């Protein structure tokens, strides 16, 4: 039976007429002859890749070639922060994966391998590839297997690559991302130094900094609330001895990526300005003199700058709590001669006391209406009747008040609602002159009630002299709608001595006991 079939097939093959019009099957993806619009591919070479933060050298060849690229996925427990480990899923055994540099027009033959020890299937999506899934479907493989596919770098620019196996957000959140630069045919403007920085998030079950082995937390990921937002895969990856090093006057290009998976980045170097920005990793400088550039999730940006002044710099995602509380911070060390003509650094330092700059005589107005709500606002009223204090002391007290007290208690003594108690018609002030002296000698903290309102702040000890205390108390107790006996320096002296004795008596006396 079989034989009959074979003969029949053979016979058909022998006598069938020639069919015309079928496309030439020798044309294929890797055709060496130039097809319409596509540059001719000459030769082949292995891709040069580098680990973060370094970038392969600029491409010098002037033709498109076939690039042989091997990408391997390794699942590996590594350090995320001090005392914190996490099982990363990585390209090339680190997050971010290696930086790949090819030229516009290159044919990139990618062999994608999933290490046999890995637990899940992975793949790769090159944002630089135009074709279904960016390679995601072509490269999808189980552990212990690899797949090869080829794509042509049609467009120059800086692109992210990342795993897109389901659930894709999780693969990204576990570290599966990197950058590929497709250099334009004519190359990019030359710079002295190049680095790459990729921002990414980690959603750990434990809080930021919680020690031990941490795991992916899906609910945090869906809520887009990472515990970590970091540069180059871990807290401090670009700090300390791993800070980027540059010299004054060097031109520098930073290749920036943002793998997300959720948060856009506002990239800023504290104390520097980007001279040229290639927004979103395109090939055109479309802005100059930029302080902070956006790096979209799943996108990139390139910035060119020159470090002008030596010293230690930080760069951040300017969403500030990410920088300070989640790890989105890195460092740049710039060496070189000082440039005092550009930035002086600290030139001088002095005490600043705003009291000296305010008006010495405040026009005080007071009201006789009772305090029914927060901090009574005194309405215009005649000056309180004179007390037995002599006018010289009161005048002196007025000066002291203007210098020390107005900042908080205000020129009219009304204070600030909920924050600084009023002195105007203040029951607390007038109730007990010894207590008033004590407050000025020791300061005051803890909850108090003034005119029916509670205040719980801190009043510092201003280290005033007996005379100053007496004067200012005399002043406030005979002004601002208050009418009460003045205070003399000897009163102050007496209280001071009492306090000293009480202190040495080894019993703390809290002013809380003065609460009404």
């Amino acid at each position: 039976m079989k034989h009959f079939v074979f003969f029949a097939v053979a016979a058909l093959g022998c006598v069938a007429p020639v069919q015309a019009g079928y496309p030439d099957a020798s044309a294929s993806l890797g055709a060496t002859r130039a097809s319409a619009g596509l540059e001719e591919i000459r030769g082949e070479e292995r891709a040069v890749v580098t680990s973060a933060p370094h970038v392969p050298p600029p491409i010098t060849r002037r033709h498109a070639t076939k690039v042989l690229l091997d990408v391997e996925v390794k699942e590996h427990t590594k350090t995320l922060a001090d005392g914190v480990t996490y099982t990363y899923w990585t390209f090339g055994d680190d997050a971010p994966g290696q930086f790949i540099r090819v030229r516009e027009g290159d044919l990139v033959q990618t062999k994608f391998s999933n290490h046999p020890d890995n637990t899940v299937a992975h793949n790769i999506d090159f944002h630089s590839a135009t074709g279904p899934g960016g390679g995601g479907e072509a490269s999808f493989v189980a552990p212990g297997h690899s797949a090869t596919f080829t794509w042509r770098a049609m467009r120059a620019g800086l692109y992210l690559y990342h795993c897109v196996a389901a659930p894709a957000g999780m693969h990204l959140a576990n570290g599966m991302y990197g950058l590929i630069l497709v250099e334009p045919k004519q190359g990019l403007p030359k710079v002295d130094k190049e680095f790459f920085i990729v921002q990414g998030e980690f959603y750990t079950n434990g809080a930021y900094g919680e020690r031990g082995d941490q795991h992916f937390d899906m609910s945090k990921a869906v809520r887009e609330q990472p515990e970590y937002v970091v540069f180059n895969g871990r807290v401090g990856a670009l700090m300390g001895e791993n800070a980027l090093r540059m010299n004054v006057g060097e031109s520098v290009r930073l290749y920036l990526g943002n793998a997300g998976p959720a948060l856009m980045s506002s990239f800023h170097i504290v104390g520097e300005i980007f001279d040229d920005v290639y927004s979103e990793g395109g090939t055109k400088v479309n802005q100059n003199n930029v302080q902070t550039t956006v790096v979209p999730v799943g996108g990139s940006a390139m910035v060119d700058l020159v470090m002008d002044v030596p010293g230690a710099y930080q760069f951040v995602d300017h969403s500030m709590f990410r920088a300070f509380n989640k790890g989105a911070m890195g460092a740049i060390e710039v060496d070189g001669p000082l440039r005092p003509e550009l930035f002086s650094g600290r030139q001088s330092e002095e005490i600043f006391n705003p009291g000296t700059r305010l008006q010495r005589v405040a026009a005080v107005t007071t009201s006789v209406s009772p305090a029914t709500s927060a901090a009574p606002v005194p309405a215009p009223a005649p000056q309180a009747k004179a007390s037995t204090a002599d006018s010289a002391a009161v005048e002196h007290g007025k000066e002291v008040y203007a210098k020390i007290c107005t900042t908080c208690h205000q020129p009219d003594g009304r204070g600030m609602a909920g924050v600084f108690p009023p002195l105007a018609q203040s029951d607390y002030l007038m109730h007990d002159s010894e207590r008033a002296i004590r407050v000025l000698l020791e300061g005051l903290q803890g909850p108090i009630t003034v005119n029916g309102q509670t205040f719980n702040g801190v009043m510092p000890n201003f280290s005033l002299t007996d005379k100053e205390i007496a004067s200012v108390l005399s002043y406030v107790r005979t002004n601002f709608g208050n009418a009460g006996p003045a205070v003399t320096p000897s009163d102050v002296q007496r209280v001071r001595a009492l306090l000293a004795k009480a202190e040495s008596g080894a019993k703390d006396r809290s002013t809380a006991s003065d609460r009404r």
Partner: protein
Amino acid sequence: MRLLIAAPALLLGAMGLVAEAGTANQGVRACKSASACRTREVFVPAGVYVPFFKSGSGIKAVPVEPICLSETAVTHEEFLGFVRDHPNWRKSRIKKLFAEGSYLADWQDDLTPRPETLSQPVTFVSWFAAGAYCEAAGGRLPTVAEWERFAGGSTPTSKPGTAADRGAGQGATPFAFAMGRSAPELANTALAFPGVWEWTANFNSAMVSGRIGTSEGADSSQFCGDGIRAVDPSNYGAFLRYSFRSSLRANFALKNLGFRCVREAP
């Protein structure tokens, strides 16, 4: 649905990959109640499986027949017994169609697993080998519906890595919960998930996860579109399982992939 019931019965007859008939005569015992299950088996009563992915007309629960389920994955020791009795399934004899080169990679030779692994789940076994073992033991591999019913558990909590989520034994990874967690009604049984993926009879029905960008199936799976079609997109344990199944071929023999068998009523 008839397919699901008919298939296993026919499987026993038609899956004639094993020449020797001796062990097959242990017989398929009726398994309509717990008492019909052997020792070290768990009775899984009839139930439903809600598929992870919405089908064309929405969410459709699939009825699952009662089965007797092995308490845990097949061990190296048990598999050794099988290849002793069925030489065609030994490492040196097996054909590439039925198992790739890594078949029993961690065994020293045809009949020598590493001693310290004897009671641990056997891995580096292909779908064919797993199916042949189950047939020889009077059973078959569970279907995806059956497996997800008894081992899909509930949606993983936001805190994996707790003792309840970690599989015991070798191969426990941070995602051990994805590798199996008892359905709530089986929580008090001896059902164990020792931290390996498990073969299913129709693993190649999981075609949507991971096939990013192809126009496959009655509904096209678009780029990262799986999440849109999943009934519960936050159940990333299920995503991992379906994605993993999608990447498999029948002759794959992987480090983290083992199996267990089920038996059901004829």
